[in-house]
């Protein structure tokens, strides 16, 4: 009993120390003491973020072989490669919390870990590549810029690097849309159609409204999350509306209008039924994305085994020489 009390005291002391650091705005480093909830929250968020980058390679990867010019192919390939790199940075950052990449991958495969819902939508035409870069990456970057100041050091450092690299992603998407909007009628139609299909899912990327968001409390207190879902969503809408106007795209929301009082756009109601339907596995591509990832993982196993076996042989040889 006494021991338990002592332990509790130590824990309270540690928690106070941790909260002081957070309060002061110091970053938390891997060897710092941290509450279990903080660690768990980070692992969940960072692995989800990493999985999203990696799964996000698929819808765009679907268009690499069909990119309509050598320049377009180069850009798209470099962009998708970046997504892979960003997944890699984020897995590494999460690994500093004591979880291995292998564990994270098996959590993804078992369904315990999630990835961003947006990648469960199909990339149907070339204009979708524009829309994904402009809207999806545009939404992601709003979130990522905010996360550069997240309290966990390795996460924050990964985000700084990612933001620096991602700055061209949104531009490449917007450039595709702009080119198509100044092209033939068929191209314009394709661009508007992609806009119509990707607009609402992009808004959903910021997650439920603040009033409905279950994890926001601790994440804000611990400074993992620096802005609320609704704040970030508003930021995204505000900058995107103007960009759409410049190239002549219509935003598929008849209730969208500027609100002088709030200094933001008001938007129509988001169809959260669809959001939860897709999250729970009924999106058009959920099954396809996971099967792809599992297949690639299984098919690569013999290669990774061979690499390990080769190293073991080399080490043995070194020992005997």
């Amino acid at each position: 009993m006494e021991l338990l009390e002592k332990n509790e005291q130590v824990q309270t002391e540690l928690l106070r120390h941790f909260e002081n650091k957070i309060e002061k705005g110091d970053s938390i480093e891997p060897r710092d003491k941290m509450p279990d909830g903080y660690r768990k929250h980070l692992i969940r968020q960072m692995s989800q973020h990493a999985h999203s980058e990696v799964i996000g390679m698929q819808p765009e990867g679907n268009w690499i072989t069909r990119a309509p010019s050598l320049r377009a192919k180069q850009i798209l390939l470099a962009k998708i490669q970046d997504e892979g790199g960003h997944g890699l940075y984020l897995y590494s950052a999460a690994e500093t919390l004591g979880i291995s990449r292998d564990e994270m991958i098996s959590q993804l495969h078992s369904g315990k870990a999630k990835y961003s819902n947006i990648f469960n939508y199909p990339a149907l035409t070339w204009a979708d590549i524009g829309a994904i870069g402009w809207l999806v990456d545009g939404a992601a970057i709003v979130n990522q810029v905010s996360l550069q100041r997240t309290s966990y050091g390795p996460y924050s450092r990964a985000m700084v690097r990612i933001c620096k690299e991602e700055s061209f992603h949104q531009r490449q998407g917007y450039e595709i849309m702009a080119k198509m909007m100044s092209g033939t009628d068929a191209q314009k139609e394709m661009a508007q159609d992609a806009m119509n299909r990707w607009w609402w899912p992009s808004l959903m990327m910021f997650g439920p409204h603040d009033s409905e968001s279950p994890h926001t409390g601790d994440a804000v207190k611990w400074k993992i999350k620096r802005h609320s879902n609704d704040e970030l969503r508003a930021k995204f809408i505000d900058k995107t509306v103007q960009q759409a106007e410049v190239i002549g795209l219509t935003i598929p929301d008849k209730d969208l209008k500027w609100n002088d009082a709030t200094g933001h756009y008001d938007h129509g109601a988001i169809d959260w039924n669809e959001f939860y339907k897709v999250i729970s596995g009924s999106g058009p591509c959920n099954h396809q994305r996971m099967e792809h990832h599992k297949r690639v993982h299984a098919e690569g196993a013999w290669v990774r085994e061979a690499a390990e076996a080769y190293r073991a042989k080399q080490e043995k040889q070194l020992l005997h020489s």
Partner: protein
Amino acid sequence: MTKEEALYKYSLKMGDNALVHSYRLSEWCSNAPLLEEDLALTNFALDMIGRAQAFLTYAGQVEGKDRTDDDLAYRRSERLFTNSLITELPNGDFAHTIARLLFVSVFERYFFTALQHSSDTTLAAIAAKTLKEVKYHATHATEWTMRLGDGTSESKKRMQAAINNLWMYTGELFETDEADAMLQGLNIGVDMPPIKENWLQYIKGTLAAANLTLPEDTFMQTGGHKGIHTEHLGHILSEMQYLQRAYPDAKW
């Protein structure tokens, strides 16, 4: 054949090889055995697209019909592509991709080492830049050949199968025609026999070090340089050229 015609053919062949090989490597994106390897294979594909742009742009200039690199890549049909067959074969497993990268990049290393001394300054400049890239590709392929050849019994089996399956496509890399001969005579093109000798020496050494067997001499497939391809190239082009063909008036 005029010098210009020969130079066009020469540049086109190098452009097509880079373009088609890059197509196959780009198919690995989001499909590699390790995230790091995904980035590596994509880097190689990007190097090759850059090289294709350089050679196809030059081919277009030499031809003098105002065709751009994109015109040549996206508006030519099967019989007009002159890449070596080995570049267009489907990826197969990782061992096949590594074996192809080994065979092709080691060839390219010796080839561009020679071509950087071409009396044609454009070819020499592209060759010098390309050489840096293919040296790395060859190193990467060599190291993986060792790991797979001397890894597990499964990886050894797969790597040996890949070497055996692709062997009959390696002869074509060294093939020369009238255009090659003419350009070599003008000190624009390279002398192939020493390249073949160096290549064979290197491949022999690598396979031996990786506990793999050099395939026996066999019939060598050919035809790519004359536009007689495997059935695979048609599928590559119908996918690659789809948007340009479906919307001929559109700019992308």
